[in-house]
C-alpha cells in the first residue's frame, strides 16, 4: 500500500491541479469583480461556477490552428512544457506530514529548477510563433527570467541557512516554533515579488502585456494550446502560493496561538487559499510597471535587499552560535 501511495497522490494532484486551475479562472474573475464593484461571471449555475465548463467547451471546440509561418515542432512543444514543469514542481510540495509525492533532500532546488524550466515554455512559444509581438514577449520573458531568477533563489538562502537543509519537510518542521515570515521578512517580500514575476502574473505580466503586445508570447496561440498556457499560469500561481506557505508561513502548522488541533492539510490549503487571494488582490490593485522599471527594481532594489538579508541572517546565526 505504501508503494502505491505516491502514485495515488500524484494522480490526485494531477486531476485536482487541472480542476483547481480551471476553478481558479472563475474564482479570480469573481474576486476581481468583488474588488472592482461588479459581479463577474454569475449567470451559469450557482454563483456562475458553470462558466468554467462553458469556457472548457469553448476552448475544446476551437480550431486548433498552427500558423504556417511558425516553427511547428517548437510551437506545439511550448505550451506542453509549462504545464509539465509546473506539475513536476508539485512533486515536492509537502501538503501534510507524509502527504507528499517524494521527500528529496534537495526539494527546494528541485522546485527552483522546475519553475526555471517553465520559463523556457514562454520563451520558446514566443520564438516559435515567428511574430514580432510574440518575439518581444519572449525577449521580455527571457530578461525577466534572468534577473528575477537570481534573487528568487538567493532570497530563500536565509530560510535554508536557518534550517540547515534543502528538504522542504525539514523547512516546515523548523517552523514549529516561529514561522519564517517573522524572522525572514525581507526574504518573504523578495520571494513574493520574484514569485509573481516568475509565474508571469499581474502586475509583472510584461511578457504578455496585452495593451502593448496584443497578447505577447501567446499571440498566435488559440484553442487548447492557449488553454495549456493558461493552465500553466494558474498552476504556477498555485505552486508559488504553496511554496510561500511552505517556506514562510509554517506549511501544515496551525498558527501558534491556535495550535494544531485542526488537520494539517486544512491549515496548508487554507493558508494557500489566502495567499492566492492576496495574488488576486495584487492584480486588482497594482498597475503594470514599465519594462525598465521592472528591470531596475530587480537589479537595484531586490538584489541588494536579498544580499543584505543573507548577510544579516548569516551574522545573526553565527552570533547566536557564539553566545550558545
Amino acid at each position, binding site marked *: 500500500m505504501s508503494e502505491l501511495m505516491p502514485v495515488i497522490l500524484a494522480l490526485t494532484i494531477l486531476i485536482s491541479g487541472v480542476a483547481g486551475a480551471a476553478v481558479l479562472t472563475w474564482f479570480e474573475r469573481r474576486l476581481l469583480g468583488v474588488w472592482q464593484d461588479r459581479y463577474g461571471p454569475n449567470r451559469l449555475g450557482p454563483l456562475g461556477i458553470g462558466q468554467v465548463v462553458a469556457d472548457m467547451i469553448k476552448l475544446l471546440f476551437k480550431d486548433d490552428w498552427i500558423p504556417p509561418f511558425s516553427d511547428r515542432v517548437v510551437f506545439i512543444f511550448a505550451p506542453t512544457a509549462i504545464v509539465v514543469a509546473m506539475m513536476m514542481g508539485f512533486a515536492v510540495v509537502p501538503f501534510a506530514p507524509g502527504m507528499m509525492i517524494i521527500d528529496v533532500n534537495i526539494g527546494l532546488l528541485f522546485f527552483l529548477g522546475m519553475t526555471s524550466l517553465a520559463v523556457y515554455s514562454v520563451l520558446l512559444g514566443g520564438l516559435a510563433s515567428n511574430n514580432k509581438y510574440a518575439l518581444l514577449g519572449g525577449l521580455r520573458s527571457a530578461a525577466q527570467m534572468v534577473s528575477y531568477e537570481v534573487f528568487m533563489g538567493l532570497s530563500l538562502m536565509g530560510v535554508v541557512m536557518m534550517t540547515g537543509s534543502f528538504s522542504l519537510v525539514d523547512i516546515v518542521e523548523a517552523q514549529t516554533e516561529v514561522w519564517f515570515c517573522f524572522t525572514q521578512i525581507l526574504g518573504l517580500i523578495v520571494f513574493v515579488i520574484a514569485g509573481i514575476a516568475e509565474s508571469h502574473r499581474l502586475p509583472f505580466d510584461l511578457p504578455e502585456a496585452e495593451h502593448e503586445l496584443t497578447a505577447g508570447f501567446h499571440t498566435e496561440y488559440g484553442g487548447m494550446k492557449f488553454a495549456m498556457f493558461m493552465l500553466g499560469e494558474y498552476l504556477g500561481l498555485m505552486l508559488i502560493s504553496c511554496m510561500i506557505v511552505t517556506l514562510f508561513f509554517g506549511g501544515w502548522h496551525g498558527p501558534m496561538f491556535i495550535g494544531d488541533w485542526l488537520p494539517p492539510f486544512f491549515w496548508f490549503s487554507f493558508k494557500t487559499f489566502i495567499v492566492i487571494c492576496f495574488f488576486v488582490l495584487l492584480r486588482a*490593485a*497594482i498597475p503594470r510597471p514599465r519594462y525598465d522599471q521592472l528591470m531596475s527594481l530587480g537589479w537595484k532594489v531586490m538584489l541588494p535587499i536579498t544580499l543584505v538579508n543573507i548577510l544579516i541572517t548569516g551574522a545573526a546565526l553565527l552570533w547566536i552560535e557564539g553566545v550558545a
Partner: protein
Amino acid sequence: MLSELRTMWEVLKHTFTKAETVEYPEQMPYLAPRYRGRIVLTRDPDGEERCVACNLCAAACPVDCIALQKDTREDGTWYPEFFRINFSRCIMCGMCEEACPTYAIQLTPDFEMCEYDRQNMVYEKENLLINGVGKYPDYNFYRVSGMKTASKDKGEALNEARPIDTKSLLP
C-alpha cells in the same frame, strides 16, 4: 512602495461595497424621459400626420439614415409619400428632432430594437407613426403657419396678422 500598499488597502476595502452592476434583462435601467432612443413620427392633436416632408431631418442626419419623398394632399397640405429610417445606421444623435420644424420626428426612451435580419432594421412610415402627440401635446403646424390650405386662407392662422397690402401706402 507606500502608495502601492495604500492602493491595495483601498482596493481591499471594496470587499464590503455593493456592486454597481445593473443586471439588465432582469433589472431595467432607468431611462430619462428625454432619453434618445427609437425614433417615432407623431401626430397633431387632430390625429393628422405632423410631418410636412420638408427634408430638414434628412439633411441634418449625420449618417444619412432618413429617406423621404414629399407629396401634396388635395387641400394643399404636404405629407411624406414614404418615410424611411434605417435604424442599422441611426446613431440616435437626435439631430433630426432638433431640425424638425413641426415637432413631427421625436426620439423615445426605447432601445430594445434588435433584429436577426438586418433588413428588419429599416422602418417604414407605418412602423414609425404613433397614435399620439409625443412631447408637444398642443402643437398643430397648419394652425399656426401662414400657409394657405383648403380650410384657412393667408392671415387666418393663430396669432397671425393680416397680409400687408404692398400696393397701399396706408399702414
